[in-house]
């Protein structure tokens, strides 16, 4: 039991948190910080 909940449920709780905040938001921030800027090339379309 962690925080009064079964370990399997706690893993779900942590899993959802990790997917949202580490995997997608964390990756998104890293992605935004990448230097390549295709938008300038794209504006010619």
């Amino acid at each position, binding site marked *: 039991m962690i*925080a*009064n*909940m*079964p370990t*399997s*449920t706690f*893993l*779900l*709780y942590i*899993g*959802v948190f990790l*997917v*949202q*905040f580490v*995997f*997608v*938001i964390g*990756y*998104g*921030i890293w*992605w*935004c910080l990448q230097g390549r*800027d*295709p*938008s300038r*090339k*794209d*504006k010619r*379309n």
Partner: protein
Amino acid sequence: MMIAILVVYFGLMLFIGYLASRKVRDSRDYFLGGKGFGPWFTAFKFAATWESGVKLVGSPGMAWNAGWSSLAMGIGTPLCYFFSFRVFGQRLKMAFDHFNVLTLPQMLEKRYNSRAIRIVAAVAILIGLGGSLVAQFKATGEIFSAILGLDYLHGLFIGAVIVGIYCIMGGYLASVWTDFIQGIIMVLGSIAIFSATAQAAFGGVSWDLLPQLNAALASIDPNLLDVTGGGKMSWSNLFIILAITMLVGIAMPQQSVAIFSMRDVRTARVAMIVCVVFSAILAWSLATTGMMSHMVLDPGEVKNPDMVIPLLIPKVLSPFMGGIYLAAVLAAIMSTVSGSIVVAASSLTEDIFKLAIPHRYERHPMFYNRVGAAVFVLLPLLFAVNPPTIIFWIGVFAFGFLVFTFLMPMIGVILIPGATKQAALAQMVSIMIIIPVWTIWLQKPTGIPALLVGLVGAPLIFFAVNAVFKKNELAPEIKELWNKFGQL
């Protein structure tokens, strides 16, 4: 007080529709808002259209019923945004601009060099979105009537007239601007009901909230702490839903239009983060609110899980905040409806009127655009009064019908340079027959969900036909597009 807030909210939506109508000059403005939206507008448009009113009422109800296991749905939505913007989004935007078109069927026509594909795609959008609009209008009528204390017909009429007026006046621009305001209201409403319920249940939000909540849930029903909700959450269904959720951005026309209308491909990066923050706030606040309701509501008065929110509002929120939450629920459903109306109207006018009556359409394009939007307000409104059986069924299969009709042809646009028009057309037509037939006649006897049939069947049909008609040489325009993809 609640009614006053709702009246102010409705007035604001109509005013935004009026402002948008003054900025709309041509079809590009009317159906794509001028294709100049930055990450915030793109994100709120995409997320508010996807996270419908069902979420603001249904999520707390599901958490009341199935406890922590309901949080599993929270994994799907961020993955939906990741796939929509990161995996598909930039290439989709690039392809849409490369072909210089206004609608998804036009993009498919140019990619596959086939007028038939454009017409089939337009018909699929008219059937799928038209049918789902009837279901959405029906939900609008039910939610409006429950919230405003009116009968169903009055609720339906008020909801449809408000969303109809701002969509007909301002088109996609009005839809995006109202979605932005509606998204903010949804976030504020969710945070408000979460903190008010925590206050009523445990004296406020604190670091001990999680163990306190779990101890209380264990004493009420230990199944609420179980990872399967005591068997209430079907993990096999959940995996099918997760797989389909990832395809929403590419395969649902009312979602992919938010990607087409971005200012540039880089917009996708910040838009993805904004979408996930939006969805995370809703997922955590609404799921925990539903579970904390056990400490606030008398179990005897909750006849079904959807009653949790209507019962909770007067108990924990002031009339002012109650009005904000009700506005949030209405906002959520109106944002979903407006997205569908504009995309369905674009297919009717740009892909049907323009082909059937080209000279008349070219003389008065804005008139016909607004007629198209009016058709998708008035017809669903009429059918929603008393839906005939066929319309009821279209509402049931519309989601799978749309997702799988467009799945492989759209993946072909951005990921398969050798995709052929025969494969795209065969997949579209087969799925448009298989999904309705399976849903109505075969789903029950076989026990196999139509969504699973579509998920497996669409790629199988596409790749089988593609193998037969595959050409070794790519068209110059496709080569040029793939060169552009290489710059990403």
